[in-house]
């Protein structure tokens, strides 16, 4: 039985250095992995490997048993939020979202766009060009873009960056709802509390390797935070 998200000895090398080194993990439906780690640990690379934006050097990264890289149908169910907004600055919020809806072949584009704009609380700026928005609002639109097609798998790379309290609350609400609906999430974040709030599992990456992977229930957030600081502070 295949898991929703599966990495098997996944390795990716850039110019002789392994950014992701022999990572193995599995996630099932309705699970959320909070992935912690210092800068340069390989978290972003890992997400990009899952998303199919990078090819593994060795090992595999699969979603529902398929590597996303060659499989267009599999990509239809995945959403990805990264450091860059992936939006077209010259187009309006609505246009960006309706474009995304078109790319995913959604039937009612207008409704889908309106729905996510409402959820991320940007409906009032629907017709503003994206580049005219503040960084925080752009981040909200970027999150909305990843949600338009109701993905079953959501890969989030530090999505809370730049969000104000309102935006952060909206995002957490959405993530909880998605988990409740059975979606699988991978959330990369620096903020232990934010991560543990929605997670069912927690992991730490450092130097390309997965150092710890355990269930959220087994953890106490205070001691985890301390252990994490020791783990990444102490190692080089």
């Amino acid at each position, binding site marked *: 039985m295949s898991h929703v998200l599966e990495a098997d000895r996944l*390795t990716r*090398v850039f*110019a*002789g*250095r*392994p950014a992701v080194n022999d990572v193995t993990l599995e996630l099932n439906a309705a699970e959320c992995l909070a992935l912690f780690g210092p800068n340069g640990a390989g978290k972003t690379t890992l997400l990009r490997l899952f998303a199919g934006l990078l090819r593994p*050097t*060795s090992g595999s990264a699969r979603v529902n048993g398929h590597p996303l890289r060659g499989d267009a149908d599999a990509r239809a169910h995945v959403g990805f939020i990264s450091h860059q907004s992936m939006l077209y600055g010259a187009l309006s919020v609505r246009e960006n979202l309706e474009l995304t809806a078109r790319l995913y072949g959604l039937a009612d584009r207008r409704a889908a766009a309106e729905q996510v704009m409402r959820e991320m609380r940007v409906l009032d700026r629907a017709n503003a060009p994206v580049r005219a928005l503040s960084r925080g609002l752009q981040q909200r639109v970027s999150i909305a873009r990843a949600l338009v097609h109701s993905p079953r798998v959501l890969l989030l790379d530090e999505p809370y960056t730049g969000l104000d309290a309102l935006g952060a609350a909206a995002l957490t609400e959405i993530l909880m709802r998605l988990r409740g609906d059975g979606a699988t999430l991978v959330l990369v974040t620096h903020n232990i509390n934010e991560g543990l709030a929605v997670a069912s599992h927690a992991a730490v990456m450092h*130097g390309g390797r997965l150092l710890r992977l355990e269930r959220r229930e087994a953890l106490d957030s205070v001691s985890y935070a301390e252990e994490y600081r020791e783990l990444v502070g102490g190692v*080089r």
Partner: protein
Amino acid sequence: MTSASFGGEASAPLSVSQRAPLFDWLFVVAVIGMAMAYVRAIFFTPIEALQGAAQKIYYLHVPAALSAYISLGVVALTSIVYLWLGDERADRLAESAGEVGLLFLTAVLTTGPLWGKPIWGTWWTWDARLTLTLFLWFLTAGYLVLRGAVEDRAMRARYSAVLGILAALLIPFIHLSVYLFNTLHPMPIVLKPEKPSMPTEMLVTFLGFFAACTVLCIALIRARYRYGVERDALRELESAGGEGY
């Protein structure tokens, strides 16, 4: 200091057997062959009646062109192989053949006018062969500039391979364009289907040059390839040595 194969790339120093031998016998044979061909052409081949002494440049011009085409053919083939198999050796071979090809193309572009001035009275003409060679020169130079402009090794190899294949596809179109254009170039008098219309002595000189030039081409590509192997191994050591895993 680790020597683990992170991406299947050789990070250990080259073993003694892998290193290029100090004495490149093929290259020496090629140089001697070229020298012999030159001597024969200059001193032991009769001067052609109509064109005079300048005709002898032809003995270098055409074999150099053929060597250039061989080199560029290697570039095109290794480009296809690289995109198909992803083997970096194919890319390294393409790089070597590209540089050697540019060398021979330059030889053709310089001998052409040197031949043309006494024969046609003008340094440059837009005839079929020279024009095609000029465009090949620009394509090959562009290929090498592209290689220089991309820093990431895998991307460089992919981009070069794409350009190599597209350039190969372009050649027939340049050829066709030039054919449609009027040409001054004398008909190729060796490569006719029936027997070539050159007297035997000249034919022997020509074939001798062809053989020597081809051997030189292969020797140069091989030498350049070996240099590429050592250079890449050195780069691996440098980048791996900088990390402290």
